[in-house]
């Protein structure tokens, strides 16, 4: 109730005061999407329905009856969430042309509050990957590739080679959503997070990426990857906005039996002034092999920031961290093998012309519909689930999972409130470099710092921290206790305020900018 009553400034207030109308806002976002098409952040732009939603929102504002803070706010949704009447592809040939008959619960919630759905964002096929490079619609380009900050620091090999070959990846798998928020084409976007898929691209694109506690937000309508780890992720330009989105999405859903029944109370993130009662844990195992010296230095600087402000900063140990990735590899592929079994061409999606038998039709459909990454994981998963392997691999991984989760329990029980770690091993790699290694290798490398939070079901957030030597964003991650999002976001917001992460300087946006696209500040709060 408090959130709805509060007067908010920036975009939300601008809408309320009539300084801008929802249709104007929507049109500007749509125009910007068009002029930033080269980013390939969107798979589907739902122009007609978005404008209609904006018109309806406008009517409500005229009557003085907006539905809430999100009324009229343009948002984007990762293309693995079902959206009624709008194509949902998961960036796969398997679902090209698939028009969902229903909205995912989180999508419905956004629409019920008047948000304007601009479109569906690009991702790695079926959310498998850490680059947003392996979808059938092509890779997503990191908006920072075109920023003055990056261009100033890069040494072009030749004038013509400049932008075309130098562009960097967004990270993944929610790269499209991260790019959309980062390039101002929407004010918030939904991603998903199974091994870091929201936090990784958030770090590379310089935006806030929140992975909520498992069981807090409904997965109904989110096409599943790993049922025991998937969560919808929230991408915004500041921590306050993440809290607004969280408030509108969290809560029990009778359609998702893995959501907890406890009441969720939406909150505004308090402004923390005194951190002396805070205990920050620095897990030493997160000084992972391959961590860039730049990020290591930033991590250290951040720890000092807290220490100098009076917080207690302690080194802690999560001894099973190094096995998290292996554990994930087994559990993920096993659940994927099960989840992908539904794609057989009969009820929906791609269907092969093969007619010899049901089985041959299934096999051909799946060969034609899935890329190598997906097929590879299905195979591995089935191997680990074979009767002779079940105990050795699947059950073993479930036991290791408990050990990993217990590591966190022990640390939080020892008095630590929040953990501070890097989010990624380095800043965003150039696309040409990234594709030198295969998807599985990349995922194994890149998920190392984010994956354990999914294993344990804990809430975690990426906060953009500073620019690297190459002029690209680097973020740091905070991991909190189960269902303690308020504490997590409070600390994140304090940190965000301290670091004053710079705004991206994008020429395309400057042309469209008229002051409505300010974003270091919240879209919803002053």
């Amino acid at each position, binding site marked *: 109730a408090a959130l709805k009553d509060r007067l908010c400034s920036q975009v939300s207030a601008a809408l309320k005061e009539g300084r801008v109308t929802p249709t104007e806002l929507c049109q500007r976002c749509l125009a910007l999407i068009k002029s930033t098409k080269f980013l390939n952040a969107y798979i589907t732009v739902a122009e007609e329905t978005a404008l209609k939603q904006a018109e309806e929102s406008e009517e409500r504002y005229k009557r003085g009856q907006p539905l809430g803070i999100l009324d009229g706010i343009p948002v984007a949704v990762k293309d693995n969430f079902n959206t009624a009447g709008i194509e949902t592809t998961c960036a796969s040939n398997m679902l090209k042309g698939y028009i969902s008959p*229903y909205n995912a619960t989180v999508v419905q919630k956004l629409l019920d509050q008047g948000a304007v759905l601009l479109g569906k964002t690009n991702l790695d096929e079926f959310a498998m990957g850490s680059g947003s490079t392996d979808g059938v619609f092509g890779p997503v380009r990191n908006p920072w590739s075109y920023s003055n900050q990056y261009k100033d620091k890069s040494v072009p090999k030749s004038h013509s080679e400049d932008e075309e070959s130098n562009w960097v990846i967004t990270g993944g798998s929610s790269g499209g959503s991260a790019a959309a928020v980062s390039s101002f084409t929407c004010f918030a976007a939904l991603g998903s997070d199974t091994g870091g898929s929201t936090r990784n691209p958030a770090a590379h694109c310089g935006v806030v990426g929140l992975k909520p506690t498992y069981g807090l937000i409904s997965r109904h309508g989110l096409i599943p990857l790993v049922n025991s780890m998937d969560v919808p992720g929230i991408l915004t330009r500041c921590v306050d906005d993440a809290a607004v989105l969280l408030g509108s999405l969290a809560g029990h859903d009778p359609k998702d*039996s893995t959501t907890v029944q406890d009441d969720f109370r939406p909150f505004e993130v308090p402004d923390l002034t005194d951190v002396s009662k805070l205990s920050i844990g620095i897990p030493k195992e997160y000084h992972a092999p391959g961590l860039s010296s730049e990020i290591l230095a930033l991590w250290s600087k951040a720890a000092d920031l807290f220490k100098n402000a009076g917080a207690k900063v302690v080194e802690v140990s999560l001894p099973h961290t190094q096995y998290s990735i292996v554990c994930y590899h087994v559990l993920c592929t096993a659940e994927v093998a099960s989840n992908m079994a539904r794609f057989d061409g009969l009820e929906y999606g791609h*269907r092969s012309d093969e007619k010899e*038998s049901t089985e041959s039709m299934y096999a051909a459909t799946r060969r034609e519909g899935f890329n190598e990454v997906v097929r590879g994981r299905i195979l591995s998963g089935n191997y680990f689930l074979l009767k002779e392997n079940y105990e050795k691999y699947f059950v073993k991984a479930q036991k290791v999972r408990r050990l990993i989760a217990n590591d966190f329990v022990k640390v939080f029980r020892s008095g630590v409130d929040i953990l501070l770690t890097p989010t990624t091993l380095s800043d965003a790699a150039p696309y040409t470099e990234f594709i030198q290694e295969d998807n599985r290798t990349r995922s194994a490398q890149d998920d190392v710092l984010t994956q354990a939070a999914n294993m344990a079901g804990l809430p975690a957030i990426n906060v953009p921290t500073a620019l690297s030597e190459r002029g690209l964003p680097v973020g740091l991650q905070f991991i909190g206790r189960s269902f303690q999002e308020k504490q997590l976001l409070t600390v994140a917001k304090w940190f965000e305020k301290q670091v004053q992460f710079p705004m991206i300087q994008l020429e395309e946006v400057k042309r469209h900018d008229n002051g409505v696209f300010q974003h270091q500040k919240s879209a919803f709060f002053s």
Partner: protein
Amino acid sequence: KKVSVEVLDHLEHLALVDFRDSEGVQRLQKAIQFADQLHEVNTDGVEPMDSVLEDRWCLYLREDDVTEGNCTKDLLENAREKVEEYFVAPPG
């Protein structure tokens, strides 16, 4: 320890995806090798974990009441081959 031909056949049948090219088999071998690292961990006396919500919440059963349905048309909408209210599969 290489994956035997019998197991490969069995897997292909179960998974219903092709991977007969050597690259696919190699990838599987690498995946198994990677997973073998799990055996370095001592899990004596440790119970497998199904869900992180095991303490907070057991998967509950709801009342056996019909709350939705009658959406045959919607469900058939996305199928490529159908006859009346049936999905059609090749024979055999």
